[in-house]
């Protein structure tokens, strides 16, 4: 084995009383592709943030090329040849690609945009990237932004590249392209660390896998000697067989009928174009697509939060197909007052679904604080509900009045899902319901959804992990840039086919 590029010794990081990393020691060799595996919340990102200078370790040492180093800022990290592509891109929206490229470098040099464009092109040619140097970041797709971020780290002379969940936002095809770029970089002698929780990717791309569990280092294994069950066991700490159940649909009744739904943004561009589908009770209806291609708008249009262009129609059926209620043009409150039992778990949990600075009790009354004729609020029932949810879903919180912002991501989601389910919905919409949650909480959520399904609730499940969607959903609608690329049978379709639908037709249209 070649020599070590970086070596971590007993690194620890605490956030308040939460231990994000607990005495982690790890060697990273030159020229390898190392996968850092662990479930959400296992401390992968915070460990890497300490290498890239975002966090400062509370304990422990870092060695580069055998010498002890102190990384106080991203600048120090770059000086050591460490560059990181964060999950949330660190780009300035109103700047062009080339302006973003040179941020922070040689401040005293003149700003020669032509020369920078030239340098950008050189890197692109070397590794096979494609990017328009003058394109503003706000006009870029997610995959373009990611490309720009990788180029940025290379431009700064990084020899160790850290990629944080790079495939989470990519289609299967874009992932393939990214992997070929990573292999190119390896050929070029670079060390690549890829943070992920997807096992098949680990097996596909890496040379070695390091596993973290609950902030602690579990072990390291050569990829050639690993398989999925072994990795799962190391990741979870026990032998687990996790299967997502998919009960058959029974008592299928039409609940929601969306016809020609169109939404536009403030500048008049299409968010959604001519979306039509029917939703039935007792089914889980998946919605797949690259992030930001209309999922949010679709759910918000149904919830009455997004205005729709005239001609659109969303009909809700209470008991029979003759008893239809039009939802378009109604406010969320009007929809509720009509007796429509619509629950919605939005993507932005603390920015939309819950109030971060309020406790569980106050969050419970968010949607029906207005009931009763009194001018005053009544906290008795919400308090009881909060206590019930805390008990039934094992929400870990110091108290019902503790601001929910202070809870961990999984517990926040339990509070939100718990409240939405407690309203006995006939239609339940969830957006990225398991994003950022550890495996156990994720499966708790899947279980809750399946329980609702068995009760006859019609469920819309917007997801990003296609593997999960293929196991959970009865039907999957694929969105492609705001248009419906097709509705497929979740039991028959393959991941690659969905991937093609997410991007494929769009490219074909461009060629016309």
């Amino acid at each position, binding site marked *: 084995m070649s020599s070590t590029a970086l070596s971590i*010794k007993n690194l620890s990081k605490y956030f*308040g009383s939460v231990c994000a990393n607990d005495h982690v020691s790890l060697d990273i060799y030159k020229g390898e592709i190392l996968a850092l595996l662990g479930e959400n919340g296992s401390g992968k990102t915070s460990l890497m943030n300490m290498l890239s200078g975002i966090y400062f370790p509370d304990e*422990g040492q870092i060695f580069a090329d055998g010498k002890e180093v102190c990384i106080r800022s991203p600048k120090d990290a770059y000086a050591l040849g460490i560059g990181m592509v964060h999950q949330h891109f660190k780009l300035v929206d109103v700047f062009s690609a080339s302006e973003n490229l040179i941020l922070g470098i040689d401040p005293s040099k003149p700003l020669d945009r032509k020369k920078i464009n030239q340098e950008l092109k050189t890197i692109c040619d070397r590794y096979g990237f494609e990017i328009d140097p003058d394109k503003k970041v706000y006009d870029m797709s997610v995959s373009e932004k990611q490309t720009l971020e990788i180029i940025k780290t290379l431009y700064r002379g990084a020899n160790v590249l850290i990629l944080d969940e790079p495939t989470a936002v990519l289609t299967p095809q874009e992932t393939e392209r990214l992997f070929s770029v990573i292999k190119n970089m390896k050929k070029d002698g670079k060390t690549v660390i890829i943070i992920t929780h997807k096992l098949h990717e680990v097996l596909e791309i890496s040379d070695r896998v390091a596993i973290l569990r609950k902030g602690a280092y579990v072990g390291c294994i050569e990829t050639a000697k690993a398989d999925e069950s072994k990795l799962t066991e190391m990741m979870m700490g026990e032998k687990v067989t996790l299967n997502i159940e998919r009960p058959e649909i029974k008592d299928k009744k039409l609940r929601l009928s969306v016809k020609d739904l169109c939404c536009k943004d403030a500048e008049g561009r299409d968010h959604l174009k001519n979306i039509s589908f029917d939703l039935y009770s007792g089914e889980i209806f998946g919605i797949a697509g690259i992030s930001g291609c209309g999922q949010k708008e679709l759910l918000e249009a149904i919830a009455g939060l997004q205005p729709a262009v005239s001609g659109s129609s969303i009909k809700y059926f209470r008991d029979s197909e003759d008893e239809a209620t039009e939802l378009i043009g109604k406010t969320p409150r009007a929809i509720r007052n009509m007796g429509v039992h619509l629950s919605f778990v939005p993507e932005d949990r603390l920015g*939309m679904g*819950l*109030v971060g*600075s309020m406790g569980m009790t106050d969050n419970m009354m968010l949607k029906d*604080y207005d009931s009763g004729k009194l001018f*005053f609020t009544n906290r008795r029932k919400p308090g009881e509900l909060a206590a019930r949810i805390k008990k039934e879903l094992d929400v870990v919180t110091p108290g019902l009045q503790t601001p929910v912002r202070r809870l961990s991501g999984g517990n926040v989601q339990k509070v939100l899902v718990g409240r939405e389910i407690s309203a006995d919905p006939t239609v339940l919409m969830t957006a990225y319901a398991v994003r950022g949650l550890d495996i156990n909480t994720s499966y708790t959520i899947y279980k809750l959804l399946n329980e609702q399904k068995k009760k006859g609730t019609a469920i819309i499940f917007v997801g990003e992990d296609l593997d999960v969607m293929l196991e959970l959903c009865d039907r999957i609608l694929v969105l492609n840039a705001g248009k419906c690329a097709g509705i497929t049978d979740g039991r028959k379709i393959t991941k690659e086919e969905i991937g093609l639908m997410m991007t494929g037709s769009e490219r074909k249209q461009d060629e016309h």
Partner: protein
Amino acid sequence: MSTEIKTEKAPFVRVVKQEGMPFSKRVVVRICFVLIALVVCGFLINAITSYDPVSVYTIMFEGAFGNARRTWATVREMMMLALIAIGLAPAFKMKFWNIGAEGQILIGGIISAGCMIYLSACPAHVLLPLMFVLSAAGGAAWALLPAIFKARFNTNETLFTLMMNYVAIQLTSFFVAHWENPKGSNTVGIINSANQAGWFPEVFGQKYFINVALTLVFAIFMFIYLRYTKHGFEISVVGNSENTARYAGMNVSRIMIRTMLLSGAICGIAGFMAVSGASHTISTSTAGGRGFTAIIVAWLAKFDSATMLLISLLIAFLNSGATEIASKCKLNDYASDMIIGIILFFILASEFFINYRLVFRKKEKGGV
């Protein structure tokens, strides 16, 4: 392998976030900072006036509470400031930056002065309630305009309300010139000094009893309104996230406009109190910067009524005290703004030590 941290290059001090400091500790931290600030101010005044720091505060206390008249003047000032802060509290809790209290006060003041001038023949039990209602309406109207534009077009309310202050100031100048008495003085003079029409009457022999009562009533009202009513709940949800409010089915525009109407109305009433209950005249300095100071009062008190009253008391004390020092040394009384500024800087700084913790570089021998 030793686990000692290499100390030479580690940053000397780092900042770490902390949440959930117990209430009692928070109070102690804040009181400590106020005390440090008072000591600093003591030495500053000592440098300018050559009074020693201890006698500085003796004189200041003398100036603020030395006799009944001074005490009441301080209390009057405190109530004024507290009432404005109470008016601002719901707007700021909603994260609506109402910098326009100054203007809303002036409008209330103009209307009160107008009523006093034109309706001086009215009996007090008709005139005073009328003034109360009209000045509240005036203040509310002044707040309504920015609120509508914020709600409809998301127009920046900080600058809109700020500009409305100056429109109100010019309007005041206009009326001062219009009502000028005596001619050429460029002031309105004491209105109705003969029959005292439109003045707050003495209650229980106290000139400022109504000022105190009015403020306390609003303080209690606001405490209950923000904590225990549906409106109050709506205000805190909108203040935390407009998206959440919309998601919960709230009509954000309506809540915003309603809250600003309330906020403006209370500020308008403060203008009424400034004219009828204190100066009995109107000028461009009727608000006198209190609209800005009250923002800081409301913010530092986290919109809690009792805390707002306490901070107002502190500021009123400093005001009267510094004025006393200034007059003893034949200096001007802007010294009080300087001192208030310093004290507020310290209180602002104290928040840091409540929300964050400092971690110093560990000693070489300390290890891990």
